[in-house]
């Protein structure tokens, strides 16, 4: 059976117009959070939302850990987005 590929849906956000929810491949979700969690602090809010903040992005999800809302920070550049898309194996 063909694995469902990563896709994204645009989200209304006043933080950045290019805010999306990325629906990761099921077999990549745990790996995604593990790899990021090794380098950055993983937080869980009172609302049960899981988030990791890097220099360029804020990644946030509910307890299911997928989809992941990705908010671009001020420092985020095109190359950061390219690297992120490569990391999660996403192409438009």
């Amino acid at each position, binding site marked *: 059976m063909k694995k469902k590929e990563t896709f994204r849906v645009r989200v209304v956000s*006043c933080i950045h117009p290019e805010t999306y929810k990325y629906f990761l491949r099921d077999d990549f979700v745990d790996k995604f959070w593990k790899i990021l969690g090794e380098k950055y602090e993983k937080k869980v809010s009172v609302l049960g939302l899981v988030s990791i*903040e890097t220099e360029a992005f804020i990644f946030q999800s509910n307890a299911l850990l997928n989809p992941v809302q990705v908010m671009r920070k001020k420092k985020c550049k095109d190359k950061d987005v390219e690297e992120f898309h490569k990391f999660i194996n996403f192409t438009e």
Partner: protein
Amino acid sequence: MKNKMYSYDKNYCRRKIYDQNVIVHCHRYNARMISTIEDTTQIDGKKIVLDSAEYSFGNILKTAMTGVSSKSEKIKIASDTYSYLGLGKLVLDSIDSGNVQAATSHIVSGWLATFGNVTRPVCSITAGYIRALAYLLNGTPVEVTETKCIGLGHEQCEFLISEKKGKPLEENVTGFTFPKADVTGIKPIESNVNSEHIHNTLFDMEFVGNDEGLIPMFNSYLASIPEDFYNLVSIKYVEELDKIHLRHFAQKRLIYAAEVCGMNTFYGIINSQEWEALVKPMLRDTKDMLVGMAAVATGLGWGKFFLEKVEDQNHMSFVTEYSYESVGYRKFRNLPAKDSTCLMFRGVTAGIVELTYSSGTLQEKFGTYDAIEPTCCATSSDGSLCKLVAVSIK
């Protein structure tokens, strides 16, 4: 430091930082409100914003620095507090030589999100904050000028501190307190939403700036800004324009700013993961959306705000108790207000009702409801309730 800084008062539905009431608004509203005031050419709007920021942030910083004698420690407190509030990141290393920088800015983020571009320095709130800090450090009032702004493409905002003649800023505080409301017969509409749960959850949450000194929540950048700031800018804006017979113009502009942002910001809120986690599971019908939005507003420290009645989708009423605008008016002015003071609430009421009941795109929804305030407790000395009524004008 976190526990010492933040507290809340469930009675008045207020969030407090260093014991000063703060209101949580988003970056778009803050930018639009400041632009409304500063870009009104008939008055010196920038002075209103600067002075109000200096006064209100001065009170927070004064409390924060109680018992602290070391200058370097005071500077650190000021820098940490600025970021904690979600205003951005201040660089205070050279404050003694009259130079301050800001590496990030809540207001610039809001300005760009709202207007698309910045054509002049816009960080008057920050300049007012620095004025307050400089006075607390050195005991003499100063002037602060923003010479570079991130919004204009500079790497960071830069501020120049210079000498200022005159006395320190003061405001008359009346000491007026509202009597407890008689809430007989006034209660929230029955709904599927547990508003108290939403209030409690939000009040239990500290909103803290991240490594950029910004607070990304509810699909927006939030900031905690002193209640006194919002009230002083609003009161003085209306008063200054009243002097030249433009009172209603001033009120309409402030209502408009709140309505635009009420609609746009709450659109972001109801599409946020925070809303999904906290409110969405309780929603069963249309009015539940309004109940949920009002409960979130309460949790942001605006005062108790609830939907009272829905006559039909063309006419509905809300109630606020100890709304920050009516309380603020009587705090700074001895006499009862001439007319409705809850201009932000009027705008937001119209905005959220439009979002919920009107159809089409956001642009098509906008302006389809009007919100009046038939009862504002600031216009009398009885009780603490204000009533807001939204009526369809399509």
